[in-house]
């Protein structure tokens, strides 16, 4: 046997995704060392002209948004008392919690002096949106951890803490819904202060509201995607009877969102730029057509909505549209005023990929060792 084929066979044995995971993690470790010994300039393409890049645009803005399935579903079950959605609450909370860990991970890389992150607790500035963001990250991560803890207590049969938690479920869920609404909106509010820098196709005083509504759509999309991925990975069935009504909620959220955005650019006059599209206008059209209009159109068709493939593809488009929106706000829309193009370095991409890969791994571990999915479904799986 030659060396090459031995490697090939070894690779085949550990599987393609495991190999990708290993490579990403090795690179991630290397970049981490560089980041903390050589500074931000050595690993990123950030500059004084473009101080916020991929780590804010993707890890923070998207991490928080994609975690929105947790507050959407906990509200559905515990505030609206629609208990039939109970089976998909736990995976949604887990996804939310991992999303927030991605945010915190991204922040630890992005902050110039992350070891001072606690300063936001001591030196207050209630006039700063970033201050609100800091408190929301911290408090809502704590809420998500508590919301997920019954799964851990159940695993080790700790009855007393489980009972205590059950008694505070309602206030806890309501606190979580308020905190995540504040957090989603505050990420939009971050950009209210740059009216002369953010492109008019994205800048609007409604940014905080748009960020909440789009996050609800994306959060539902992520819930559908995560159900699909668990189905593939753990041989579970797709709960179409639960996901299809959720998809209808997503249509409503994305529909309201699309209308608001159209009204905003009509009123500001920015819509005229679409007639003779430049770089920003093309990116806007791509985001809105592929990421909003297309999934809404698809999901309006009952045949598509009730078919697993149609549902999952539509959810994927909505999530992609959400990611495109956050990157357009944080990167595309800021490039013109900055006067420079920003393309993340491969090392920035590696850190983001590494954090996402760790999230996937933690999800898989949690599903394997903890009762994340309800028991009957597990029995049906094989």
């Amino acid at each position: 046997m030659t060396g090459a084929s031995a490697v090939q066979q070894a690779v085949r044995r550990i599987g393609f995704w495991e190999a990708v995971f290993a490579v990403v993690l090795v690179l991630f470790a290397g970049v981490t060392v560089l980041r903390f010994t050589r500074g931000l300039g050595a690993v990123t393409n950030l500059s004084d002209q473009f101080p916020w890049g991929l780590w804010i645009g993707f890890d923070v803005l998207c991490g928080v948004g994609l975690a929105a399935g947790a507050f959407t579903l906990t509200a559905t079950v515990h505030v609206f008392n629609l208990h039939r959605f109970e089976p998909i609450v736990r995976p949604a909370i887990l996804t939310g919690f991992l999303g927030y860990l991605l945010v915190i991970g991204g922040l630890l890389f992005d902050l110039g002096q992350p070891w001072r992150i606690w300063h936001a607790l001591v030196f207050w500035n209630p006039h700063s949106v970033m201050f609100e963001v800091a408190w929301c990250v911290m408090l809502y991560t704590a809420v998500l951890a508590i919301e997920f803890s019954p799964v851990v207590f159940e695993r080790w049969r700790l009855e007393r803490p489980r009972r205590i938690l059950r008694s505070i479920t309602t206030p806890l869920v309501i606190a979580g819904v308020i905190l995540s609404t504040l957090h989603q909106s505050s990420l939009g509010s971050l950009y209210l202060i740059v009216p002369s820098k953010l492109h008019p196709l994205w800048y609007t005083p409604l940014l905080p509201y748009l960020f909440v509504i789009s996050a609800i759509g994306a959060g539902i999309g992520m819930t559908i995607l995560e159900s699909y991925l668990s189905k593939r990975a753990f041989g579970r069935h797709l709960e179409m009877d639960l996901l299809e009504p959720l998809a209808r909620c997503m249509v409503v959220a994305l529909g309201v969102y699309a209308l608001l955005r159209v009204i905003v650019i009509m009123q500001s006059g920015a819509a005229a730029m679409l007639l003779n599209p430049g770089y920003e206008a093309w990116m806007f059209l791509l985001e809105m057509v592929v990421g909003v209009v297309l999934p809404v159109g698809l999901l309006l068709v009952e045949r598509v909505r009730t078919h697993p493939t149609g549902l999952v593809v539509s959810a994927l488009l909505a999530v992609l549209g959400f990611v495109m929106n956050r990157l357009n706000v944080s990167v595309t829309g800021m490039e013109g005023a900055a006067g420079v193009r920003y393309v993340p370095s491969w090392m920035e991409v590696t850190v983001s990929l590494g954090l996402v890969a760790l999230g996937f791994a933690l999800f898989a571990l949690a599903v394997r060792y903890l009762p994340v999915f309800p028991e009957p479904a597990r029995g049906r799986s094989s």
Partner: protein
Amino acid sequence: MSVGLLFDSTRCIGCGACSAACKEANALPLPIEEHPTAYTWTVVERVDGVNVRRLCFHCAQPTCVSVCPVSALRKTPEGPVVYDAARCIGCRYCIMACPFGVPKYQWDRAIPIVGKCVLCADRVARGLPTACAAVCPTGATLFGERNGLVREARRRIAANPDTYVDHVYGVTEAGGTSVLMLSAVAFERLGMKTDVPRRPLPLLTWQILSKVPSFVGVFGALLFGIHWITKRRDAVRAYEAEHRENAP
């Protein structure tokens, strides 16, 4: 009393004494770079044959001060916007938000901080002019009480209306700044931001932030209400179902 600077670009000869004095007064490392950085807080740039100083404008209601989550930036009553490096966590929101693009970051350091002109706050507190104004050989950079500087700028424009553009940059920009500028050519051509809003920018975020406490109360009450009603609805439905079974 609030102080400031008046920079008259028609009087600047581009000698760079201000940059050198700034380095010395603020113990910044050499060399003097071409454009402002975290280590060079002011430079004279030559644009279209005009010498124009780049430095912090020291807004009356600074955007950087409002966005800093840890209050590392502060507007002093005397005018300077100062920075406390010991508090800074490095979120760089000030760099991202400043309408004039002033704050800079130490991208090359493992333990970086922000760098920006602080209007020689410690000198000003001792009653001295800023280092740049003290060394300027032509009086292009003038230190003084801010309102007096506005009057002086307007007097110069009125005396030489053919020389100057009829605008004192900094009187209304971002709600007014402590540093003012005069020019013989359109400010836009000098690379100055002319699309800066006239209202102080912190108002834009405060409109939303000030609503947070009432939002928490109202939204919380609404969610509890929905929970209460839907739970009650379920209880009633269960009760009715039970009684229908028990009925004869």
